[in-house]
């Protein structure tokens, strides 16, 4: 007999606001994990590290007060992009120090040698250099979040998203052009 066939009144109301239900969490994991990992890998390049950060994003979802069910996707993407950008900035800082100690630079990983195109490096360098809010907006919009989802996940006024995105795009363009001289 399946336990759910047994009729019974609901038990004492449990406070479920603190943690997502295990079944809901699994549903969200199934729905979003690979896309989250891919979104992070877009920013930081290393797929293995992207998986670790994706796990970190889901761990944060598990441990923190969850957003509304319809906002979980946006919350996950925002968390994932922030983790990725923080990693990217750490990596950029590390690279600056490594240039000072070029003789001590560790050997390149296969991903350094074979996966990083010059264009990818430029785009990541610009994303790392921009104010985090700009980079977040651009990456999340590129992941397909709507204006409403952007507003909800970044806790912004929905009416301001268009303007903020325009500013972020302009900031990216200016930074890229000033670094690499490419004209649109």
């Amino acid at each position, binding site marked *: *007999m399946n336990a759910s066939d047994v009729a019974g*009144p609901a038990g*004492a109301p449990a406070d479920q606001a603190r943690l997502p239900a295990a079944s809901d969490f699994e549903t969200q*994991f199934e729905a979003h994990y690979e896309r989250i990992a891919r979104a992070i890998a*877009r920013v930081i390049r290393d797929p293995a590290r992207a*998986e*670790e950060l*994706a796990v970190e994003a889901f761990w944060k979802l598990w441990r923190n007060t969850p957003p509304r069910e319809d906002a979980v996707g946006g919350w996950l993407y925002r968390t994932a992009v922030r983790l990725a950008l923080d990693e990217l900035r750490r990596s950029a800082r590390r690279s600056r120090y490594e240039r000072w100690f070029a003789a001590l630079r560790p050997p390149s990983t296969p991903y350094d040698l074979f996966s990083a195109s010059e*264009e990818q490096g430029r*785009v990541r360098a610009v994303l790392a250099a921009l104010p985090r809010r700009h980079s977040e907006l651009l990456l999340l919009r590129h992941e397909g979040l709507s204006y409403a989802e952007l507003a909800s996940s970044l806790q912004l006024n929905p009416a301001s998203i268009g303007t903020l995105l325009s500013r972020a795009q302009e900031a990216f363009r200016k930074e890229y052009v000033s670094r690499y001289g490419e004209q649109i």
Partner: protein
Amino acid sequence: MANKFESEQNWLSAKLDSLNPGEVTFNPSRARTMLRERSAGPGGRWAWAGAVAAALLVLIALPSPRAAAGRVWQRLFTMKVEQPAVRSAAADFALTDSTGKVVRLSDYRGQVVLLNFWATWCAPCQHEVPWFVDFQARFGDQGFTVLGISLDEEGWDAVRPFLAEKQVNYPVMLASSADLPQPYRSIGALPKTYLIDRDGHVAGEYDGLASADAYEKWIRSMLFH
């Protein structure tokens, strides 16, 4: 103007598209394992709690801070307790235990029941089981029983050896969240423990690891008052 805007949009899109990781596959099973390890192993919050517990054990051994350390211990580890002023009926279930017998919560009407949701991979759950074995041994003939429901995905292959090792003396059933009625289906973290009175109403809930003393005090208050 519109064309310039569109050109800039396309340009930016192309830049961000260049970051696509290509033919990379990500392994959800590995991610699930990492999540479980974080919840139960080193580096998880329970490892932190264990380190703090070790420090507190030192304090507890000292005569003067013993009582204070004990209170701190209880505050740290009693994650969340609810003792509702108005008790609602506990949701019934019918699950098969490790001997193959179907166990219903309603079979225990008239007894005080400690209903514990746990899993073998959950470190604090493992910590509690010996307490429950002790409670069953001491109070089992006085109108009390422990009922354990394991949420182990690996099934009886994982659970039976654990039951044998710990010499568990109370009924343990196996379920997945989907098999359970609400509110049990929505349990988000383990361990989760309900204390149910003789009328089948929920007298209290613990979220997380509690102390053996707190459980015993609660059980005694329901058995003997």
